[in-house]
């Protein structure tokens, strides 16, 4: 008997496991002030997965440019950007440890001084003319991704008047199904601002905070060139389908 949802390719495209909401921030987190007016008051309505949630967009390598995962060079005009040269790499897996292949990983960040190249960022720290601050890549057959960049600086923001974000890189992941869509942020091991950040404090547990901290990976430093950080990501997994649920009313 074969899995009714296995396709011609032999892969299982069954339902995703339920999202464990206890692993994520709640919508309403008043310490992060903007969430107060931007959080639903009603409970989310849980639905069964359909094809709409089990499938998702497919991206091709030829849609990306050769420097898209090199933030040191992909906006360099007349020289190199200023700041700490770092390589960030890791694996994207699902909850059951399987690699998530061909996932679109998109990253964006501030420059070494904490300034974003965005028309709405008015922080006094200067723009770096040779640094854009975004990159993207597809995971390989093992779920592996790698990019290099300049380590971003912390920056102030109007939450409480003296709040500062720790150094961080934003991540967007588009996996193998719409239900896996995830946006998050990566922090750097040892940063003392992590313990004070209202956005990090929206998270429900220390363990989940640790899951967002990239670890120094000195074995993969490139001598006299770049330091290295390791950051793995877990997306929702697909449940194995041995038995279909009974239709309502059936025995």
């Amino acid at each position, binding site marked *: 008997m074969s899995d009714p949802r296995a396709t011609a390719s032999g892969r299982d495209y069954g339902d995703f496991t339920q999202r464990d909401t206890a692993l994520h921030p709640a919508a309403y987190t008043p310490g992060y002030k903007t*969430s107060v*007016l931007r959080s639903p008051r009603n409970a989310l*309505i849980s639905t069964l997965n359909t094809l709409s949630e089990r499938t998702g*967009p497919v991206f091709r390598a030829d849609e990306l440019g050769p420097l898209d995962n090199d933030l040191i060079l992909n906006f360099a005009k007349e020289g190199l950007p200023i700041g700490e040269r770092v390589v960030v790499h890791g694996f994207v897996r699902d909850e059951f440890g399987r690699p998530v292949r061909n996932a679109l990983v*998109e990253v964006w960040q501030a420059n070494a001084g904490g300034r974003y190249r965005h028309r709405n960022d008015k922080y006094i720290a200067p723009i770096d003319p040779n640094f854009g601050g975004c990159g993207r890549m597809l995971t390989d057959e093992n779920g592996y991704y790698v990019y290099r960049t300049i380590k971003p600086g912390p920056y102030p923001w109007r939450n409480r008047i003296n709040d500062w974000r720790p150094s961080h890189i*934003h991540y967007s992941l588009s996996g193998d199904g719409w239900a896996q869509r995830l946006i998050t942020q990566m922090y750097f091991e040892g940063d003392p601002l992590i313990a004070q950040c209202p956005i990090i404090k929206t998270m429900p547990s220390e363990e989940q905070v640790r899951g967002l901290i990239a670890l120094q990976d000195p074995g993969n430093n490139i001598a006299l060139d770049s330091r290295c950080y390791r950051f793995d990501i877990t997306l929702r997994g697909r449940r194995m389908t041995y038995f279909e649920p009974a239709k309502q009313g059936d025995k």
Partner: protein
Amino acid sequence: MNRPTFSPISSFGPVRLPETASQTGGPYVHIGLAPEQAGFDIFENNFGNVLVGTETRGERIAIEGRVFDGSGTLVRDVLVEIWQANADGRYAHPGDDRDVPTDPSFRGWGRAGADFETGVFRFDTIKPGRVPGANGASQAPHVCLVLFARGINIGLHTRLYFDDEADANRSDPVLTGIEWEVRRRTLVAERSVRNGAVVYSLDIRLQDTPDGGRETVFFDI
């Protein structure tokens, strides 16, 4: 029957790793996901809000919307993505291998930032066909949406249905699965014709608003 494949990182049984925690996309989400809107040109090929090409089959439509916070103020920094089936109701993904025509010139996915002034987001797409639901039911034509923004800690999932599909909507398993009938209409976009083009408009409310606007239904999918 296929045997379960155990994770290579444990030989003792299946593991269950915790899903990576979500964090807000923040106010500068455009830098990574829509750099031209952030104000600079970096990639040769940008992902955008136009899902159709000249070859794409189906009825051309525009989807337009605005997002409001709990004070009734426009959320001008929101980023919206959509995912939908083609005109025949098939998704461009290997998990949809039904005997329904594919459309090589339709990916079914797009992203758009709201305009920083007007707060309007827009997609140029086609009206999707019907797709099967759970347990053999048939779903009404719909578009899946997800919203990311400053202040939103985890992406908000919702759906857009079409007001000229009233019969199909009445039997849609997801819509009718919303116990509170009054809330179902928050997902139904209004059809209009503007300069000869079909536009479906939907306002999304993150919370009930002072003008009486009802909070949009959001899903845990």
